[in-house]
């Protein structure tokens, strides 16, 4: 038997009744449902975390210019800027989330967590958390498992795909995973971990998916940075036991409800929002292929 990740309430109850902690129950799920060995799971997580850290470092070291030109070494500029708005730590957090996501936009290797569009959020937050609090890799991997459990429930009750639920489903879910993982790593209780998820979802609700020219660049890259910041603010609030009031399961249900009533032009189709602005359309005209044969409707090609 293993817990099937249908609700946060159920997950908490399962842990309490079986004397399991959050990450144990995720390992158990993977062993029972997917037939993996515990050793493979830890190795897989270590590999994923290594790729995440590599992405952060690559994005801060190598040239990150996308083919469209919209992404142009933003992470390095932020990292090296002489003025720190809040603190050097905050500056590093933002630049790291940008860096890993820029690597994704520029055809580098990333971990889709939960999706490629949101691939800067867990790397940026966990890299920075580990550095500030001198955490072991093992602790971070446990945090990743907690994040995976959070994502499994969101997938079950709402969605993780921008094309289905808008950007709240991608960067919102990644921020929720990051906030939960961070509170776990800082020895928060189950209640506090789930509260961090609830608060994060409340902050990310309603975000539409409107990528310029359909490319995973604008606004995706900066949203990875803002989602990382929101994950940190939610973790700070949750650790102090400030309640989200609306329980986490209900927050996720709200996200699902918003996603299903969101118009399709706001779901990765590049037909609304920023993609439809004057500049967005001009960029689309420039980067999209124009030498294209158009068939009459309902005609079989060749």
């Amino acid at each position, binding site marked *: 038997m293993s817990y099937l990740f249908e609700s946060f309430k159920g997950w908490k109850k399962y842990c309490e009744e079986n004397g399991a902690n959050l990450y144990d129950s995720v390992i158990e799920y993977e062993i029972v449902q997917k037939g993996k060995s515990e050793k493979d799971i830890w190795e897989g997580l270590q590999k994923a975390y290594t790729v995440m850290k590599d992405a952060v470092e690559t994005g801060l070291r190598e040239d990150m210019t996308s083919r469209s030109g919209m992404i142009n070494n933003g992470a390095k500029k932020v990292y090296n800027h002489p003025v720190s708005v809040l603190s050097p730590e905050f500056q590093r957090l933002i630049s790291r989330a940008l860096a890993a996501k820029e690597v994704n936009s520029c055809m580098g290797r990333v971990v889709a967590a939960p999706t490629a569009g949101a691939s800067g959020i867990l790397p940026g937050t966990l890299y920075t958390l580990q550095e500030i609090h001198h955490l072991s890799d093992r602790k971070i991997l446990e945090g990743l498992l907690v994040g995976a459990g959070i994502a499994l429930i969101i997938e079950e009750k709402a969605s993780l795909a921008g094309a289905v639920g808008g950007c709240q489903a991608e960067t919102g879910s990644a921020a929720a995973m990051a906030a939960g993982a961070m509170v776990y790593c800082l020895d928060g209780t189950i209640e506090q971990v789930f509260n961090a998820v609830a608060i994060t979802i409340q902050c990310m609700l309603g975000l539409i998916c409107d990528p310029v020219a359909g490319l*995973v660049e604008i606004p995706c890259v900066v949203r990875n940075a803002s989602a990382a910041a929101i994950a940190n603010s939610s973790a700070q609030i949750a650790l102090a036991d400030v309640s989200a009031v609306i329980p986490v399961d209900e927050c996720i249900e709200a996200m699902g409800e918003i996603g299903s009533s969101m118009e399709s032009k706001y779901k990765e189709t590049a037909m609304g929002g920023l993609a439809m602005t004057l500049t967005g359309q001009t960029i689309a005209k420039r*980067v999209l292929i124009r030498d294209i044969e158009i068939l009459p409707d309902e005609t079989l090609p060749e």
Partner: protein
Amino acid sequence: MGGKSSVFDMIGPIMIGPSSSHTAGVVRIARSAIRVLGGRPDHAEITFYNSFARTYEGHSSDRAIIGGLLDFKTDDPRIKQALDLAKEFGLTYNFKSIGNASVYHPNTIKLSLTKGEQKVEIIGESLGGGLINIAELDGFSANFSAQSHTLIIKAKDESGAIAFISSVIAQEKTNIATMSVSRKGKHDVACHVIEMDSGLNPITITYLKSLPWIKELIYIPEIDL
């Protein structure tokens, strides 16, 4: 969605950006196609349809497809340089865009590959999240996901062929997950596509190949596409 997701769907897959449907899925279509062809092609005619037709450069699906034809895995950083590396591997190619092919899935690619005398034509769909469907093979409807062991048999369209092939497979205690048959005209050639939960012994494959009514047999063992 069938079945429960894995922890490594949530923290993963590890992939080359920017998007699983435009890179990972595209690489997988190409890697399936070269397995049907039986090796790396010398020449590839590549047609991008519908949504892919306009966006393939922006999303770097052109590098992904060439990377896949060179048999690079979905997380191989060389994909980024695939267009330059093609020359070294002796691969020539042409790209073409066709929009508005409403009979096709929004993200469809057609590959016409040649390797010496060998030729193959594949139509592949990138379904999202890196999942694919090989919709057509040499004009036959195929519909396989390249996620399990796949057996493709082109045989004379005779009665009893389906029952015979499945009984041979059953003797190996191999479970058939899906099986489809498509044919071009009655009593001409039928294409059988069989997806199995476990692999086949080489002896069985040799035996099937030796049957006079079987014209062509392609076996693609489960690989990490």
